[in-house]
């Protein structure tokens, strides 16, 4: 019921697809997030960069659940980094952290999936 207020830029690092998120992630972000996910293609892992996140509501958390289902279907790992302390707590509260690997930065997220020597 709301319009997209976030952008999702996709880049590749080895076998991983990184999604740089900027702006507000809400239910209105569904189409752009899923389009970004489709660009990830056959990546072995999808890594979400939340460094540019300014706001996320419960609709945004719901989108991540949907994204996780799609990633599981393709046998892809889903990871995240760049979360503020507040959003880390939200991931813990909603127990998303049990299915999405949370990392401090891009380098450690990529290292966790065996992509080394790259990352910011």
């Amino acid at each position, binding site marked *: *019921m709301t319009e997209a207020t976030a952008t999702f830029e996709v880049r590749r690092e080895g076998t991983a697809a990184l999604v740089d998120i900027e702006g507000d992630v809400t239910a209105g972000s569904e189409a752009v997030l899923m389009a970004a996910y489709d660009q990830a293609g056959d990546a072995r892992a999808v890594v979400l960069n939340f460094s540019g996140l300014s*706001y996320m509501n419960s*609709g945004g958390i719901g989108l991540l*659940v949907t994204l996780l289902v799609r990633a599981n279907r393709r046998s892809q790992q889903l990871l995240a980094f760049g979360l503020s302390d507040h959003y880390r707590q*939200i991931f813990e509260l*909603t127990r998303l952290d049990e299915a999405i690997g949370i990392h401090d930065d891009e380098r450690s997220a990529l290292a966790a999936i065996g992509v080394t020597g790259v990352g910011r």
Partner: protein
Amino acid sequence: MSEMQEPVDTAQIPDQATARTAANWAKRVTRLDVAEVPAGATGINVAGKRLNSPIQGFGRLWQKTYQVHLPGDVVSPRDLIAMWKQKFPQFWPEGNHFYGPLTGIAPGEVALIEGTLPGRLRLSTGVMVLYADEESFTLMTPEGHVFAGWVTFSAATQGDETVAQAQVLMRAGDPIFELGMSLGGHRQEDKIWGTTLLNVAKHYGITDAEVEMAAVCVDKRRQWKRWTNVFKSAAIGSTLYMLAAPFRAVFGRRG
């Protein structure tokens, strides 16, 4: 507008963003705490339980959306949500009781629910307010609930109408609830949220409103590794609690 404007202090922006979101989300909790159990509720399947997102559920993942359209000149989305948060329990269908906080829906508040299952079985459960802002609020379920997930209530402007919406993202909590959902549980849920929305419309004097429903199966796969959720079932807990009522009456009097 004045030509001279205060320079933007960009260092303040992240703090403002954090403050904006922090007030809308519940604080992190490991297990739910029920401070006070109102008369008529038990709180037995809520106190000490963890929250369950759809990830921790068993059944197929469903996203179900219910909408009712109201004339935009009758109520704005923000006013509707403010009213809904304040009077949420009043709109529940008969036979189900929502024991919410007297102050209305607010992030982190725990509400108790007394409902009925097919066969007149009583179901004691609850929810926590996960998120609330001026245009929406979300209730999340604890372990043992019929479903693992959340329900988001929202309102938005569409053309010259205000659309009130309830959207459920859920997996049935355990194999028994999954079976129950396919044997009438989904219909019962449709009735609960459909009636709730019609009651909201009636509050504004709209008696001929119709509820639109859409259900999408986001994931057809069941999470069999979660079958042990059945041991925390609120239905089983509620039934045992009911069966133990005579013993509580006897031993309670002695104590």
